[in-house]
């Protein structure tokens, strides 16, 4: 594809902190290359703002190769932009054409308060993990590949669930701001493996309890989370979480 340059209008959410109300500010960016990533386009804008003596726009980013889960941004109504199974850092400007207007908002959920501009506090996810998303005993170094037999199907499903990067796009996309896809991925990842099996019941109870405490909404099986997940985490995991949870509660699980 031939590369080209474009001029864009950006409507970006600005908010000093979570105590004050935010608002949209409109910016013009010029000569953006179609080869740039979306975050590089923001770098250009921020350099322009710094040169003008204005506050740059705060946004989250880290690896910029689609695996860390740090970048966020709700772009023209879509978490991580319009491309399927793509993080914002991997969204490239060839998606847009000269003269486009792009609206960029932070993840919006009460459980993800805005820290500044497009940066939100996702530590609620950390607290859910801390409530049970781990194996308590030290399992030592990785054992020889065939020393611990695991059924192929279970290994594959666990691996698929483990590919969740905890970015929060599921919460951002869900009309209920529910974190069920994230929690279900963590539950499924561990419940399917022998190392995670002994604690599966208490884990399900405690993680769901923490999810509710953090103020996420209830899942109503809408499916926007699955559609927006950059790692393709399936709704099948939510069905599994429901089963795990019912099993844990009605078999008299250890107290949460």
């Amino acid at each position: 594809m031939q590369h080209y340059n474009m001029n864009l209008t950006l409507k970006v959410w600005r908010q000093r902190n979570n105590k004050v109300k935010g608002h949209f500010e409109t910016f013009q960016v010029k000569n953006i290359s179609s080869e740039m990533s979306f975050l590089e386009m923001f770098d250009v804008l921020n350099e322009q703002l710094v040169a003008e003596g204005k506050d740059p726009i705060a946004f989250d980013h880290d690896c910029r190769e689609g695996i860390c889960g740090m970048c966020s941004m709700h772009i023209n109504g879509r978490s991580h932009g319009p491309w399927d199974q793509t993080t914002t850092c991997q969204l490239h400007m060839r998606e847009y054409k000269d003269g486009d207007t792009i609206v960029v908002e932070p993840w919006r959920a009460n459980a993800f308060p805005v820290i500044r501009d497009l940066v939100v506090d996702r530590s609620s996810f950390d607290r859910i993990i801390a409530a049970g998303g781990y194996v308590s005993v030290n399992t030592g170094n990785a054992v020889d590949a065939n020393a611990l037999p695991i059924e192929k199907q279970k290994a594959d499903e666990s691996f698929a669930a483990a590919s969740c990067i905890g970015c929060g796009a599921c919460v951002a996309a869900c009309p209920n701001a529910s974190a069920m896809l994230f929690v279900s991925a963590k539950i499924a990842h561990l419940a399917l493996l022998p190392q995670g099996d002994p604690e599966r019941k208490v884990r399900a109870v405690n993680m769901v309890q923490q999810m509710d405490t953090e103020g996420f909404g209830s899942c109503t099986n809408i499916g926007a989370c699955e559609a927006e997940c950059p790692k393709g985490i399936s709704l099948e995991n939510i069905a599994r979480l429901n089963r795990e949870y019912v099993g844990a509660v009605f078999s008299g699980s250890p107290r949460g």
Partner: protein
Amino acid sequence: MNWKNYFTTSIGKKILVGATGLFLILFLVVHCYVNAMIFWCDGGKHFTEAAAFMGGNVAVRILEIGLFLGLGLHIIQGLMLWSQNAARRSVRYEVSAGNKTSKWYSRSMGLLGTLILLFLILHLFHFWAPNRYGQAFDAGWKEEDLYEKMMVVFTPMWVVIVYLLGCFSLAWHLMHGFYSGFQTFGLATNRYKGIIRSVGVAFAILIPLIFASMPVYMHFMANSHP
């Protein structure tokens, strides 16, 4: 955590909505089966016999109490979920993904349910309430002639239109609700979700379509036999 406070958690709440929803789906099948007997074209003979059995049977009367409890729970819990979930995002998005990432009816279950509830109030007022009142006070626990009553109720066109709108709302509610109930119980696994979705779509089209044809049929029957 024990089962007593289970139903107050986010998963417990949706289990309640799902369980009562699947119970109401079973009720729809029975209701549709009995009412479809009007299509025998025998002046309502088969239908009246079936209705008399349903209306005069003690077991069915007891099940009816369960039905109202289930319906009430479904409505209250559903509306509570709707309002609680709406409060989880105080600042709304400027631009929404719309139908690109989800179906409009999946996002509108609260609204569709409310429309069905409004229809249901009218429906109970038309048939259930006068029938039970009549049974208790006038006819010595006998069913009214419901076939005749349908003719009277469905004579004006506006009633037919309201009933068609009720069936329309029901169809979209079921389009999400059928699959969603199975997903909530963890049954929509990769192996079964395809068939659950297909059966759900067929159910959501077929049952409301049969229901919708009833007021239309009775309207024309009433107007052809003045």
